[in-house]
């Protein structure tokens, strides 16, 4: 490593420009959150002080959501999505860590969904959930045809996966989890493969069962990676936009309106006047939350 005088600074200019733009954008977001600005004419702006924030916190009617609705929904969204992503990812990694015929194909099929653009995947999921021809209902109806299971339970098919508030939320969740599983699986696989074999050998000598090995060797060895990957995933899940937007646009009855969807709706769709400013105020909250999570994530990285 050498001192290069001015040279390293000149070389890093392109990246510095990118980082400067990000810093500028954040400052601009905070600045705009104190103004009345609209997307129709962003050149005109009027200072309103804390007006935009007050708007976020006023709750004129139960039908118009406000900041606490969005925050709770985002919190439930992130908590359920990330925990299931971790569980399924861990399962996938444990499978991939075994020796079996067809493992190469299994690996390729596991990473492939990663490359499917989320917007495309969201439309594919909309088709899966379609209550006329969707494959999910088809499968259920085929099961029903042969076993009469749903008729016996009194469940009428086809089910509407999208249309009612709670099922819509769960349907969006399932699609979002789907998008995160390949990453989680590969992260955990890398972690599993880094566990020294001696630990398992020692456990074997002590007569540990498969489950005991998992509980006392695998999990403790993997837990730092689970922590880091969860924090990473929290940020991405919190920012998740494409799936919800394409599947439900935040509806029905705002049931799937998380913070990112709210930003887009408030800034660009609902309000002809002042939307951009109020959207900026929402973005400030979004940035603050995400930055806090990133702070803990980076602290954890430093330690590891």
């Amino acid at each position, binding site marked *: 490593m050498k001192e290069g005088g001015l040279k390293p600074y000149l070389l890093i*200019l*392109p990246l510095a420009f990118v980082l400067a733009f990000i810093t500028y954008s954040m400052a601009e977001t905070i600045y705009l959150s104190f103004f009345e600005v609209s*997307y129709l004419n962003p050149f005109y702006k009027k200072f309103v002080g804390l007006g935009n924030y007050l708007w976020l916190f006023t709750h004129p009617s139960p039908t118009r959501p406000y900041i606490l609705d969005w925050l709770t929904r985002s919190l439930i969204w992130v908590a359920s999505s990330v925990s299931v992503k971790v569980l*399924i990812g861990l399962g996938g990694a444990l499978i991939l860590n075994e020796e079996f015929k067809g493992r190469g194909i299994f690996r390729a099929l*596991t990473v492939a969904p990663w490359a*499917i*653009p989320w917007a495309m995947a969201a439309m594919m999921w*909309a088709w899966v959930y379609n209550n006329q021809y969707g494959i999910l209902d088809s499968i259920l109806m085929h099961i029903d045809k042969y076993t009469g299971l749903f008729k016996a339970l009194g469940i009428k098919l086809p089910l509407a996966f999208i249309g009612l508030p709670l099922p819509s939320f769960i349907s969006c969740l399932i699609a979002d989890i*789907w998008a995160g599983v390949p990453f989680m699986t590969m992260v955990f696989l890398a972690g599993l493969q880094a566990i020294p074999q001696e630990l398992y050998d020692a456990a074997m000598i002590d007569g540990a069962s498969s489950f005991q090995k998992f509980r006392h060797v695998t999990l403790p060895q993997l837990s730092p990676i689970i922590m880091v990957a969860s924090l990473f995933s929290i940020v991405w899940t919190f920012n998740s936009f494409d799936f919800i937007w394409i599947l439900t646009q935040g509806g029905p009855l705002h049931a799937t309106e998380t913070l*990112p969807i709210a930003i887009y709706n408030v800034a660009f769709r609902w309000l002809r006047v002042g939307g951009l400013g109020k959207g900026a105020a929402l973005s400030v909250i979004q940035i603050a939350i995400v930055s806090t999570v990133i702070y803990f994530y980076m602290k954890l990285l430093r330690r590891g």
Partner: protein
Amino acid sequence: MRRSYLRSALIYLSALLFLFYLHLPTYQMLLTALQPWDEFIKHVPPLLYPSHITLINFINMFKVVPELPTYLMNSFIYGTGVGLLSILAAIPSSYSLARFKFKGKEAILALIIYANMLSPIMLIVPIYRFMRVLNLVNTYYSVILAGSIFTTPFCTWLLTSYLRGLPREIEEAAMIDGCSTSKIILHIVIPLSAPAIVTSFIYAFITGWSQQFILALVLIQRDELMPVTQGLYMFFARSSVRWAELMSAILVSTLIPLAMFMVVQKSLVRGLTAGALKG
């Protein structure tokens, strides 16, 4: 012996369940795209396997979505633009980070990790206003410039860690021979780090091709400039969806990023997972 049979049966069963979830949407896409639509809707409930295979939907999709070639071309332009801009910024920056000691380097490394976690949705308000004020809304530049902001940090990180693992002797010898820094980068650093450059380019290309849906949604309103994700979404959002043609179009426009991803799969997956774990 009996135990090991049980064990492998369990492995295959859970692997199948896992793949069922991951490939339910892809399976239905193939099922719809490769079957005549009349055949598909004839059965109630629809069959779970194709009864006839046809490629007719791939011809019809150009009639139903006549702008599809334009959309694909646009996605190609966005992907290439974001890819090129990201690696052009990342190459000198990563060389500086990997080879020199300077004040503020630690801060920049921390900022790279921070920036890598940001999503376009967080900064969409200032980005929109910035592009409006510069009159760049509804141009290729707006999406490419904004898109590169979010891909450059990861590309720089990937290249920096690759360069750190490369021996410096050749560069040092060239330096003693009086080679300029630009010559060293062009003739030594770029050829030696070509695999990492290709991986970062493909990462940024895929992201620009498709992953930055919100940017196009906000910055592009004109049909002839839409990337394929947005264009097909517009088609999807209309009241009556032609599913067979839509799924065919999605299949075609997913194959390109998928093929690129698979080419560099090993190194890209390694890079992305290490990027999340090591920072």
